[in-house]
C-alpha cells in the first residue's frame, strides 16, 4: 500500500428532513415537505412511505395529493435541516474530532486511529447506528478507505464495512452515480452506455478527461484512493482530549461535577508531563438523544490548575441541559503553551498576582472578554481617543495628560441650549431640561481635530470649564455654532 492507511465513515441520512419533522410532531400518515415552485408547491422531501407510494421529488403537491389523498404535507425548512445536521456532526465528535457534514443528507467522519477506542470498526458502526436509530433517524453507514468510497458504499453497498484494500474490486460493479459526479456528467456517461464504475476504469484516461473534464478523473482517483481527499472538520482538531463515558447516562449536577474534576485531573497530569499549560478548553456534553452541547473557557495565562479551571467551568455548568442523560463528557484543549513549574521560593504568602489573573479569567468568561480591561492612556488631542482599552492582564506605560479633565465623560456628548451674553463662555445653559446659571467659567481650551484621521465631520472644539450656582462643575464645548456637554468635573 502506497498511502498510509486511513479510514472514513460515511453516514447517509436518507430521509433527514422528514425524520426531523417527525421527531418533533409524530404522525402515522405518509409525510412530504414542500417548497414553493413552478405551478404551486412542489415536493422537496419525502419519507419512506411517501416514496414507496410512487411519489417523487419535485412533483407538484396537487398531483401528489391526487394520488395519495391521505398525504400529510408540511413546509420544508432547509435552513433548519442544515443547522440540525451540523449539530449532529458536532455530536459525532464523541467518536472523532474530524467530523463534518457531507452534502445536505450526510456526515463524514475520519476514524483513522479512533476505532480501537470503540472495540473496532464494526462495534463503532453498530454503536452509531443504534444511537441514531433510537432517535428515529433513518440511516445507512459505511466505512471505507476514502471519503468517496465510504459515501458510495453507504448508498450503494450491501454491508457496513468495506475492508481495507478492497475498494477498487468492490466498487467496480457500482453504478456511476456512486462517484458523486455532477448530474450532467453522470447523464452523459449513462447515455454512452457507461453504466458502472468498472466501465469507466476500462477506458483510456486521456480521452475520458477530454470528453468529461479533469474533475471526472479526479473524482474517480479520489474515490479509489489514488489521490487523497481532505475533509474539512467543523472545528479545528484539539491538541489534547480526554473523555469519560456513562453507559446509562448522567444528569445530576453532582455527577457532572465529579466527572469534570476527573477529566481536569487526567488532562492536568498529561499536561504536566509535557510541561504545558492550557489557554483554551472546550467541554463537550454528548447526550443520549444524539445532540451535543459545548462550553468553552479561555485563560489569560497558560494553566493546568484543576481548581482554577473547574471554577471557570462551574459558572457555566448551569446552562447545561442534560436532556434524557449525558452519555459522554469530553474535554479538549485547543491552545496549549509551555508552562514550566514556577519556583515557589521561601515565601509562603499567597500569590496575589496569580490570584488576580485567575479572577480576571473568571470575570471574562462570565461577562465576555471585552468587559474586563485596563484603560490605557495614549497621546491624543481628542478626549475620546485619549483612552484605549487594553488586555487586563498586561499593564502598560502611561502617557501624561496636562490640563484638568472631567472625572466622568459622556460617550456621546449631549446637545445643550446656551445663552451667551458677554462671551466667550455661556452665562447659562439648559441640559436635560434643567437650567444652570453659570457663576464661574474657565477657558476656552482649543482641541483641534486630528487631521490625519481624515474625518471631515470633526470640527475644532473650544472647551470650557463651568461652575453653576450649586457648585456643579461641567465640561462643555462649542463646535461650529452648536454647544455640547461632554463631562462632569468632581
Amino acid at each position, binding site marked *: 500500500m502506497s498511502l498510509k492507511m486511513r479510514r472514513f465513515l460515511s453516514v447517509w441520512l436518507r430521509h433527514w428532513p422528514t425524520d426531523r419533522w417527525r421527531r418533533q410532531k409524530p404522525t402515522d400518515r405518509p409525510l412530504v415537505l414542500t417548497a414553493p415552485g413552478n405551478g404551486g408547491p412542489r415536493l422537496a422531501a419525502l419519507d419512506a412511505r411517501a416514496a414507496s407510494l410512487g411519489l417523487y421529488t419535485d412533483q407538484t403537491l396537487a398531483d401528489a395529493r391526487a394520488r395519495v389523498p391521505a398525504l400529510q404535507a408540511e413546509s420544508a425548512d432547509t435552513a433548519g435541516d442544515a443547522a440540525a445536521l451540523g449539530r449532529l456532526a458536532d455530536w459525532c465528535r464523541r467518536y472523532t474530532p474530524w467530523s463534518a457534514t457531507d452534502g445536505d443528507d450526510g456526515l463524514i467522519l475520519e476514524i483513522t486511529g479512533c476505532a480501537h477506542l470503540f472495540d473496532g470498526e464494526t462495534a463503532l458502526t453498530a454503536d452509531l447506528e443504534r444511537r441514531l436509530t433510537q432517535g428515529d433517524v433513518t440511516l445507512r453507514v459505511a466505512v471505507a478507505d476514502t471519503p468517496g468510497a465510504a459515501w458510495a458504499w453507504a448508498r450503494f453497498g450491501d454491508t457496513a464495512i468495506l475492508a481495507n484494500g478492497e475498494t477498487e474490486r468492490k466498487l467496480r460493479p457500482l453504478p456511476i452515480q456512486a462517484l458523486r459526479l455532477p448530474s450532467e456528467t453522470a447523464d452523459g456517461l449513462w447515455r454512452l452506455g457507461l453504466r458502472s464504475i468498472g466501465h469507466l476504469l476500462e477506458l483510456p484516461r486521456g480521452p475520458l478527461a477530454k470528453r468529461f473534464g479533469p474533475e471526472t478523473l479526479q473524482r474517480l482517483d479520489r474515490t479509489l484512493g489514488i489521490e487523497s481527499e481532505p475533509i474539512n472538520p467543523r472545528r479545528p482538531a484539539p491538541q489534547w482530549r480526554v473523555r469519560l463515558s456513562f453507559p446509562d447516562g448522567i444528569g445530576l449536577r453532582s455527577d457532572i461535577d465529579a466527572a469534570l474534576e476527573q477529566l481536569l485531573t487526567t488532562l492536568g497530569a498529561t499536561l504536566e508531563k509535557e510541561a504545558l499549560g492550557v489557554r483554551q478548553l472546550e467541554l463537550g456534553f454528548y447526550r443520549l438523544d444524539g445532540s451535543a452541547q459545548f462550553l468553552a473557557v479561555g485563560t489569560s495565562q497558560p494553566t493546568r490548575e484543576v481548581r482554577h479551571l473547574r471554577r471557570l467551568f462551574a459558572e457555566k455548568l448551569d446552562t447545561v441541559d442534560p436532556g434524557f442523560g449525558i452519555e459522554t463528557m469530553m474535554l479538549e484543549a485547543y491552545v496549549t503553551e509551555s508552562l514550566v513549574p514556577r519556583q515557589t521560593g521561601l515565601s509562603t504568602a499567597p500569590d496575589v498576582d496569580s490570584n488576580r489573573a485567575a479572577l480576571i479569567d473568571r470575570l471574562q468568561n462570565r461577562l465576555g472578554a471585552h468587559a474586563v480591561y485596563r484603560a490605557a*492612556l495614549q497621546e491624543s488631542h481628542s478626549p475620546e481617543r485619549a483612552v484605549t482599552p487594553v488586555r487586563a492582564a498586561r499593564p502598560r506605560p502611561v502617557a501624561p495628560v496636562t490640563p484638568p479633565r472631567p472625572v466622568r465623560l459622556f460617550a456621546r456628548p449631549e446637545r445643550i441650549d446656551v445663552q451667551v451674553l458677554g462671551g466667550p463662555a455661556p452665562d447659562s445653559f439648559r441640559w436635560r431640561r434643567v437650567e444652570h446659571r453659570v457663576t464661574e467659567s474657565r477657558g476656552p481650551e482649543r482641541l483641534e481635530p486630528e487631521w490625519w484621521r481624515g474625518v471631515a465631520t470633526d470640527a475644532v472644539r473650544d472647551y470650557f470649564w463651568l461652575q453653576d450656582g450649586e*457648585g456643579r462643575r461641567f465640561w462643555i464645548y462649542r463646535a461650529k455654532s452648536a454647544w455640547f456637554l461632554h463631562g462632569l468635573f468632581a
Partner: protein
Amino acid sequence: MSTLRARQLVVLRDRIRRLDQPRAEELPALPLGITAIDEALPWGGLPGGSLHEIVGRPGDAAATGFATWLLARLKGQVLWCRGDGSETGIPYAPALAQAGLSPERLIVVETGKPAARLWAMEEALRAGAFSAVLAEDTPADLTATRRLQLAAETGRTTALLLLSQPLLGRVSAALTRWQVTSVPAETNETARWQLALARCRNGAGDTWHVSVGHVTQDETLSLRLAATLAD
C-alpha cells in the same frame, strides 16, 4: 431601652463580631488625613475589609471624585465595575490619573447588568486580589450588602458602592454612608465638596466642607477642611 442597656448591646454585638471575624479587626483603618473627620470615625479612619457607600446626586461628579480620592490613597490594584454610563457618564481614566489613580492600578469591568456588577464585585472581594473594589449604581438591598460586607471581610478588601443618587428608604449593611455634593469652589481650588457622613456604625453623623487642592507628593489630591457649616 435605657442608654446603659443599649451600650451593653453594642459591646456584646461587637464581641460577637470579633469572635466571628477575628481577622477583620486586625486590618488597619485608612486615615483620611483630616483630623475632624478621622475623629468622627470610631475606627480613626475608613476601616479596611468592609463595605462603604458613597452617594451623589444627578449631574454632579463629586461623589466619583471622593471615591477616586479614597482609592488613590488606598494604593494597590483597584477593580472598578461600571455600567454603560449613558445616564451618568463613564469614569474617565485621564481624570482618574490626575486624581492619583493611575491606569496601571485600575482594572475596569463593564457590564450593563447591575446583577452582573454585583456578582463581579462579590467575587473580586472574596478573591482578595485587589486592595479595593468599587461598583457603580448597583442597587444592593440589605441581603446583598450583607453578602458584600462578608466578602469584603473574607478577602480583606475595601468595598465601595458608588450611587449616583440617593435611594429613599434603602436599608444597608454598609459600615458608613457618605453623601457627597459639589459646592461652589474658590478660584484657587480644584473643587469643593460637602461631605456628609449620613450613616456610621457605632458613630454619629456629621457634615464637613472640604477644599480640593492639587496633587501632592504622595500622588493624591490634597484635601483640607474648608469651612464649618451653618456659622
